[in-house]
């Protein structure tokens, strides 16, 4: 079953006008911010398909920047997000792409500061639900039908087993898991879909494990 909770149907509370073009866009921006771990100094966002066609009218642009500022879907500051970000000195650019993507509502979010960069591709699949399909060149297959956690870690023995043990200890069932890396022994990414939403204290516990760099939650 695609939808598990009544609050997927009655909810989310959000700033209008579109659950896919506004709430979904904010969630894509917020996942990028969350994985980046801090407020970026610049953001360059490419929009595809229906996002590129209608983003101005839907506030897709302010919603994406709102998400990057860590605003939730119901945060009224989303409306003024571009002004707020500009005041903070964030350099923002939007590119309307002509390329045809698999999904009509696709955004490529490229953010960074003098210490690092992050590039993420997200799609908004309806009702505010999103999927992240690419992160820093790692391909992901987050279905968006389950809550998930993304774990950036060093590619070392035991890193995966340690994370799995913490989840097992808290009786959290893993529905789907994949690991991708670009080079042996360097940075790697665990994508773990679980059956239930994970409490923040479990995430902190995982974050404190050796070789774990960052943990991010994508709520169902």
């Amino acid at each position, binding site marked *: *079953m695609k939808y598990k909770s*009544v*609050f997927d*149907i*009655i909810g*989310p*509370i959000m700033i209008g006008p579109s659950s896919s073009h506004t709430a979904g866009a904010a969630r894509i921006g917020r996942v990028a911010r969350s994985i980046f771990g801090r407020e970026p100094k610049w953001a360059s966002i490419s929009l595809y398909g229906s996002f590129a066609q209608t983003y101005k*009218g839907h506030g897709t642009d302010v919603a994406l920047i709102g998400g990057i500022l860590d605003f939730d879907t*119901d945060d009224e500051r989303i409306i003024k997000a571009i002004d707020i970000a500009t005041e903070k000195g964030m350099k923002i650019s939007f590119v309307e792409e002509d390329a045809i993507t698999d999904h009509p509502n696709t955004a490529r979010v490229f953010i960074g500061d003098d210490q690092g960069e992050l590039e993420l591709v997200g799609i908004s699949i*309806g009702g505010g639900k999103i999927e992240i399909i690419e992160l820093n060149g790692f391909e992901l297959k987050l279905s968006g039908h389950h809550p998930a956690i993304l774990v950036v870690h060093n590619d070392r023995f035991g890193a995966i087993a340690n994370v799995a043990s913490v989840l097992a200890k808290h009786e959290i069932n893993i529905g789907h898991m994949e690991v991708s890396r670009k080079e042996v022994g360097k940075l790697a990414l665990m994508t773990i879909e679980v059956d239930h939403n994970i409490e923040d204290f479990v995430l902190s516990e995982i974050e404190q494990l050796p070789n774990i760099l960052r943990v991010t939650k994508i709520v169902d």
Partner: protein
Amino acid sequence: MFRNVAELVELAVSQNKQISDIMIEQEMKVRRTTREEIMGLMERNLVVMEEAVEKGIKGVRSHSGLTGGDAVLMQKYIEKGNFLSGQTVLEAVSKAVATNEVNAAMGTICATPTAGSAGVVPGTLFAVKNKLNPTREEMVKFLFTSGAFGFVVANNASISGAAGGCQAEVGSAAGMAAAAIVEMAGGTPQQCAEAMAITLKNMLGLVCDPVAGLVEVPCVKRNAMGAANAMVAADMALAGISSRIPCDEVIEAMFKIGQSMPTALKETAQGGLAATPTGRALEAKIFGIPLDKK
């Protein structure tokens, strides 16, 4: 866990409970938490719905200028008292429009089941509230009953305009609302299912053709008529009228119609009202793009 409307009704009837109770109990299992917490979460949604209606009734306008102010006109018309249909129906229309006008103006709303169809369920709820004087708990339960039927539609068909057209969004919302009205008015679980079926049958084939791709025209007025449809269908079910085609089969028909609907009529702003001369002219004006470039 119920998978379809027949199972949902059967669960309620066999345990002598309301549809809303079955939904609440299922959510308690999914979230592993208490009834109080689940009710509290839904109460937050209810508060957002109330605030949106209040804001819309006072009058709002969207950034594009396409929508806004109609809830005010409707409210003034009702107050004059010379209306032809019923007061409760028109209250539902006015409050549904209010919610969607707030949505179009980038105000805060609760998606039910989507943002574009967010007016129907609260519109009917607050209209029926004036007639039936429900308790706060009964109002929260109204949302669980709607949610239970929406849950079935979302899992067996679709609640996305891009996937199934407007019938999947406002159609689903109207069916959900009709079922919840019946429960609040004291109807049986089976009557809830009949109301949902009757409503959805009359929304089948409705396309998603928003002008300029914006959730405004015709979305706001489709919410108005979705609310009116739900009110009348609820009265029909309470009168003892049943749907010859069972609710689950209507939902399946909606799904199949959505699959065979052309892409131009599924939230791409390429067909229907979006492609009319006036629709195209409005689009060009809003985005500042010359008509021949479109």
